């Protein structure tokens, strides 16, 4: 058919077409009124902004401490944004902070307490799963089947069950009755209290207090698994385990080594890193097998084999001592620091250098897989920009996180190496030279501080009494009038136990200082918790009965907890705001343990994976629905205000814990040793001139110490919930009970210093004014422990950098200072005066002096229990004053007017002088008995050669290891570990390396349990470790799996957060990274035949998971000791719960742990990768 168009038809069509073409421009709707102005928030439905109430909160994600302003109308959230005035985030936020409001109004929030009615997944079925899919199938067969109940029903249920468990334990063991008195041995208690690093300081403190009242030392938190190795290694070297300086420090550095990924994990830190780059050209170097977003922002990316950090750090020192000219130990500044600030002798230095001499560039290149020239560049950049080389014109920072901490040699080697490099290069204590382990959770620093770092340690890191002898020594100390270390006469019978070489009054050594630090803590807790620890009668420390409400000894860590449950020694657990079912290594063992508990109580805002195993699930309030303080990663404590009321029936954890106490008490779950002993009060007596003087009687009021209702003055409760349990009263309690937190409340002015939001710099002449204005440090914002010091160990930086001491006028006096002093309330004037004069130094304030030593109880015997609740100042105590004629007992008013110390109740008359500030850093630290490096070297060689010999004979590294342990009577026996040496991870990719640098893991018997698959329920399951590629390959071949052996490591991304329980439920974050994947190099992808987005299987000795591959040039494929070693980075923040579920990385990670702190080795292990077979 042909279409014919007539001439006229064509003309018509042409006309229409012409008109149509012309229409858009020529005939647009001509009279429309275009909209050209908009009201604020009109587009996104935020018109209520103008009349909104603005409340600052502290972000609940990372530890930077960013402020988020909530714009609200009643209980509804209109908008959130970074607080413009915050010196940390200056109005900015990262995507997690920006989306954090989605945690509050979230359809998945728990709105009611719930009790489980369904059976729990059987542990044996859980442990038998070989793949993630098999595990999920098992778990989903046993849903919790929650029944919603009232708070009263939930508390009653918990209290009755726990009372039964504890009474059963008490009746079977006799506890708390012991042969020499009344006390609990904390590790034997069947209760574990876990969590959390995300709750407020007040909540963390309360959970720790609850554990003490339950009589357990089995306390721990997320910090076990993130920075316990940092805290321990740094505390044992510098005196404190925290990041040494606040965030402003990073902008003052000239070179930064990132063994970490802060651009993703702590995005706002890059405000200050970029400031440094801009203002002084800071060189940023990213050491990471993965081309992270930190590598993107850095000048140089150095991919290296996970777990070889010590070798890199030791090579930096090798360069400094043996390659550069002159060597650093010939520099005058090195010699000054060695004489004044480090604890080493020339012989020690020689021993250290002998060890370092073995880490030459070639050796380290072979270990790490870093090419020689790159290694040299790294060492040159770091050493030549250091304080010791430049005379403190330049400094370098080592910045790290999980990449360094989660190894079996983290404490003894990796972090000690970082701490030592910083000391020897003259960086520590000088601006721009901080040692910066960035902490993870928003309040992990605070929770660590206020739970004492776990294991039954008390808030503020006061170790509990380890034996009843400790309590006797403590009682004698009390009789001496609670003296500081210099005023304490250690009784003859206690000298050996204290381990001091300076027992006499007038002198002190570290052992004595640390003993007094612990005693001082116990005394504060006795006063604030209304409990007793001492002897009965108090007059007779040697022979009296020991009665102590503080549980004795340390307890179980969180990583070891699962095996204790499976063994049956732990039967009940409280988990506050933590998700170990995702965050623990080898997670099916944890799941089996959680399933085995007789009682598991979980408090959280969502039904987490851990909650899946709970008996009772309590709905907690989110961060914006409660108030209190949080301590950021560099110790700055800030107040977070309540923006909206809790959703549904959810309640803040402080409310939950304080109420829990009441029900537990009523049900008889809590029985204090002092009650069992019938002690109702303490007769406080001081020994003076050979006589015992009765000072006062202190009633025990444990229940009153749990009454946090009401509140006056600055502690007016902010709502009905806070009127029942007021965090402001808890905050005051912390101020008085926890030495390092002294200062968070100002009792003279009745203000909470953590509420200060003043971003002005101080002026010269003010306390730390020159420091603040010179180095741009925001000291008027919040409060920082200790005593508002921001850059710790900053003893003489003003003197050294500015060339002269500074003069400060405060509390009516002039003070000559050389570094940062911090501030403390003055007992004479009530004004602030410099605290650490002339500057903060190592271990301070563990070392302190006290004017009231021998004169009065702490805080002059003020009734603190009443004071923090009502503001009333009743002095129960008296002041024992010796005169020529005898001993006088004075009341407060008389004593205060005679001495002028009218404010002694505010600061307990603590002060610091040259004695207390002269402690040196423990550059050399003894961990085990034995000798130094040179002495140990022959034994080391013997150990290596035996290991090689037995491996060759037996063909099995595990058998060879066990044989060496047996033959040599131990592992690494004879080395003090005074210097860090490289050691391989338990699962080493190169057997030669595993023999040459034997893992440190077997120093801890727990790891041998893992090696031998103990306890018995683990036998025959896929839960162990493979010590070398051959072992893993053989194991997997039996399952029909062949692939390429890789080094596995794990990471998070900016958009993901730890267990994922939060970010996976936040739509704006889930959208960015919805599912986990494995990051693999292009070379490895070609080897196994996958393209980006294809599924791969990852298999380890613990089982297999299937995830997509993300293929990039930005992932390490290394040449290690002549062998090809591909590295795979696995995103781990997923599991089986919630809308965005996915395989859990920890399903396949190993649960071997660091010998000192039991942190797990989740950053370097062995896997086999293959393309997933198509189904």
């Amino acid at each position: 058919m042909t279409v014919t168009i007539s001439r006229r038809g064509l003309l018509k069509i042409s006309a229409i077409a012409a008109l149509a073409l012309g229409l858009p421009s020529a005939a647009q709707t001509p009279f429309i009124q275009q909209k050209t102005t908009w009201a604020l928030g009109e587009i996104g439905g935020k018109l209520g902004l103008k009349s909104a109430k603005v409340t600052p909160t502290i972000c609940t994600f990372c530890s930077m401490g960013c402020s988020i302003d909530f714009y609200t109308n009643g209980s509804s959230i209109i908008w959130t944004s970074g607080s413009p005035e915050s010196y940390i985030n200056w109005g900015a936020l990262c995507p997690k902070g920006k989306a954090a409001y989605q945690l509050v109004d979230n359809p998945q929030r728990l709105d009611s307490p719930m009790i489980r009615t369904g059976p729990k997944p059987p542990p044996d079925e859980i442990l038998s799963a070989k793949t993630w899919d098999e595990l999920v199938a098992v778990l989903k067969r046993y849903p919790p089947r929650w029944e919603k109940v009232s708070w009263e029903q939930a508390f009653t249920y918990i209290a009755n069950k726990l009372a039964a468990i504890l009474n059963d334990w008490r009746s079977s063991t006799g506890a708390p009755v012991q042969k020499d008195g009344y006390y609990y041995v904390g590790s034997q208690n069947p209760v574990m209290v876990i969590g959390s690093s995300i709750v407020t300081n007040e909540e963390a403190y309360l959970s720790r207090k609850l554990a003490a009242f339950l009589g357990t030392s089995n306390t721990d938190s997320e910090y076990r698994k993130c920075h316990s190795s940092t805290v321990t290694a740094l505390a044992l070297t510098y005196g404190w385990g925290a990041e040494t300086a606040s965030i402003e420090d990073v902008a003052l550095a000239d070179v930064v080594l990132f063994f970490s990924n802060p651009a993703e994990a702590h995005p706002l830190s890059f405000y200050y890193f970029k400031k440094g780059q801009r203002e002084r050209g800071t060189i940023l170097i990213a050491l990471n097998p993965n081309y992270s977003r930190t590598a993107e922002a850095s000048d140089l990316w150095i991919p290296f084999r996970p777990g070889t950090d010590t070798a890199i750090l030791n090579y930096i020192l090798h360069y400094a001592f043996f390659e550069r000219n002159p060597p650093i130990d010939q520099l005058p500044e090195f010699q000054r620091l060695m004489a004044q600030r480090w604890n080493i002798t020339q012989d020690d230095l020689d021993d250290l250098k002998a060890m370092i001499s073995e880490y030459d560039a070639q050796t380290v290149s072979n270990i790490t897989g870093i090419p020689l020239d790159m290694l040299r560049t790294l060492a040159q950049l770091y050493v030549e920009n250091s304080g010791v080389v430049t005379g403190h014109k330049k400094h370098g920072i080592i910045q790290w996180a999980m990449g360094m901490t989660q190894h079996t040699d983290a404490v003894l080697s990796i972090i000690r190496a970082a701490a030592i490099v910083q000391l020897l290069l003259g960086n520590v204590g000088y601006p721009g030279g901080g040692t910066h382990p960035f902490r993870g959770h928003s309040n992990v620093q605070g929770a660590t501080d206020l739970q004492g770092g776990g294991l039954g340690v008390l808030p503020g890191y006061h170790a509990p009494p380890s034996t009843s002898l400790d309590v006797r020594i403590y009682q004698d100390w009390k009789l001496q009038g609670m003296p500081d270390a210099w005023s304490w006469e250690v009784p003859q019978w206690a000298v050996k136990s204290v381990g001091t070489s300076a027992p006499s009054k007038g002198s002190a050594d570290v052992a004595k200082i640390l003993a007094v630090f612990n005693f001082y803590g116990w005394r504060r807790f006795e006063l604030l918790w209304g409990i007793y620890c001492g002897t009965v009668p108090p007059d007779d420390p040697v022979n009296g009965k020991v009665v102590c409400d503080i549980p004795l000894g340390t307890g179980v860590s969180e990583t070891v907890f699962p095996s204790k449950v499976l063994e049956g020694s732990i039967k009940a657990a409280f988990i506050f705001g933590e998700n170990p079912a995702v965050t623990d290594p080898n997670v099916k063992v944890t799941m089996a343990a959680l399933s085995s508990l007789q009682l598991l109580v979980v408090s959280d805002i969502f039904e987490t994976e851990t909650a899946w195993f709970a008996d009772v699930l309590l709905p907690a309030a989110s961060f914006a629905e409660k108030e209190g303080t949080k301590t950021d990663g560099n110790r700055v404590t800030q107040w977070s205000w309540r923006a909206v009321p809790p959703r549904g029936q959810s309640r803040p954890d402080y409310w939950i814990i304080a109420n829990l106490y009441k029900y537990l008490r009523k049900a008889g779950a809590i029985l204090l040793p002092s009650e069992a002993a019938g002690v109702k009060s303490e007769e406080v007596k001081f020994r003076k001139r050979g006589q015992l003087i009765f000072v006062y009687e202190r009633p025990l009021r444990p229940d009153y110490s749990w009454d946090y209702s009401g509140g006056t003055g600055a502690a007016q409760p902010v709502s009905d919930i806070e009127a029942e349990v007021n965090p402001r009263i808890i905050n005051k309690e912390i101020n008085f009970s926890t030495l390092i937190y002294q200062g968070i409340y100002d009792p003279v002015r009745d203000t909470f210093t953590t509420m200060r939001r003043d971003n002005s710099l101080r002026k010269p002449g003010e306390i730390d004014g020159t420091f603040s204005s010179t180095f741009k440090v925001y000291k008027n914002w919040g409060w920082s422990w200790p005593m508002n010091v921001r850059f710790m160990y900053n003893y003489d930086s003003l003197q050294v950098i500015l060339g002269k001491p500074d003069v400060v006028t405060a509390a009516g006096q002039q003070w000559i200072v050389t570094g940062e002093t911090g501030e403390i309330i003055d007992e004479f004037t009530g004004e602030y005066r410099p605290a650490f004069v002339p500057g903060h130094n190592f271990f301070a304030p563990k070392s302190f002096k006290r004017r009231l030593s021998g004169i009065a109880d702490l805080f002059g015997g003020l009734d603190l229990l009443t004071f923090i609740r009502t503001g009333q100042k009743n002095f129960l105590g008296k002041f024992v004053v010796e005169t020529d004629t005898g001993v006088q007992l004075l009341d407060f008013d008389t004593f205060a007017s005679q001495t002028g110390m009218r404010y002694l109740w505010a600061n307990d008359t603590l002060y610091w002088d040259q004695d207390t500030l002269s402690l040196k850093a423990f550059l050399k630290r003894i961990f085990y008995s034995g000798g130094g490096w040179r002495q140990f070297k022959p034994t080391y060689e013997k150990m290596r050669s035996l290991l090689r010999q037995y491996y060759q004979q037996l063909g099995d590294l595990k058998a060879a290891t066990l044989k060496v342990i047996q033959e040599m009577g131990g592992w690494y026996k004879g080395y003090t570990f005074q210097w860090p040496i490289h050691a391989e991870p338990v699962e080493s990719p190169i057997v030669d390396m595993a023999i040459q640098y034997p893992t440190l893991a077997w120093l801890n018997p727990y790891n041998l349990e893992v090696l031998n698959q103990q306890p018995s329920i683990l036998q025959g399951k896929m839960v162990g470790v493979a010590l070398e590629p051959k072992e893993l390959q053989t194991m997997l071949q039996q399952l029909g799996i062949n692939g390429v052996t890789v080094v596995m490591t794990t990471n998070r991304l900016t958009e993901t957060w730890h267990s994922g329980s939060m970010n996976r439920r936040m739509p704006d974050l889930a959208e960015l990274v919805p599912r986990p994947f494995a990051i693999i190099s292009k070379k490895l992808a070609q080897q196994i035949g996958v393209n980006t987005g294809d599924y791969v299987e990852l298999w380890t000795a613990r089982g297999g998971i299937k995830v997509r591959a993300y293929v990039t040039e930005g992932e390490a494929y290394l040449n290690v000791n002549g062998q090809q070693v591909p590295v795979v980075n696995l995103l781990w923040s997923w599991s089986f719960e919630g809308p965005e579920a996915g395989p859990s990385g920890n399903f396949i990670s190993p649960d071997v742990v660091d010998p000192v702190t039991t942190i797990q080795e989740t950053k370097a292990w062995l896997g086999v990768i293959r393309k997933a077979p198509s189904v």
Partner: protein
Amino acid sequence: MVAVNPPPANEGYAVLVDIDKCIGCRACQVACKEWNGRGPTETTFSPTFTNPPTYTANDWKVVFFYEGTTKKGLTTPAGELVFEQVDIAPVPSQCLHCVNAPCARACPSGAISVTPEGAVVINKDQCIGCGFCENACPYDVPRRGSDGKYYKCTFCVDRIQNGKEPACVEVCPTGVFTFGPASQIVQMAQSEAAKGRTVYGLNLNPYVGGQVRWIYVSSDRRAFAIKQHFPKDAVVPTNEARELLKEIVPPLALVGAVGLTIIGVASWRKSRIEEQKSAQQQKA
């Protein structure tokens, strides 16, 4: 006709986007959604890491990631070191707010206005969902939503008209975006260009008005991302041709229509005459 009367390039506001400062955190992407009240987008694994892989009606701002090999430089104690290494560069992107926005010119319903600030805004009440803006955009920005209407970045017009920076600018932790008067921003961009840095957004095709209001700058190290991200020429040739035709066709169409009418009338008259003639003949 709705006159699209954009302010001159040196008036209104502009933003300098320094991608060297970007750490790829995507706070801007989230802040944009939050401020504009846009819901979540269902996504899956993204092979480029960019997620969603491009703009959607709910994602007006997207950070695009580009991987490449590039030259890096470092000052060491031993001297300057230049070496090749992999790099991944984030490019936070949104509507560039062309100085003379082709989308606004293309919109038949007058739904796209250009404010005195230079913000190119789709007013959804007037959007008819025709998609002309999508066809006209050289940067592939406007996206049709589930309600059939088109969406894109508004330059946070409801913020900048009320004394606030755009939400993405405010949230950025590292100061990637400098928001300010266009004259000042353009000058900054020019001085960055003079320093030898790569600049995108000035001296573009007249199709976009020769310039855009979101101007990108980067060092050599990340220039590969700029090259990959932006089109070679800021123009949509088919739409450009259409616009040219538009200029020519209407007068021609008028002439044509008049001509046709004359022809039509003439032919009608002719046929009428013929009809009349034949009628007369029939009568006769």
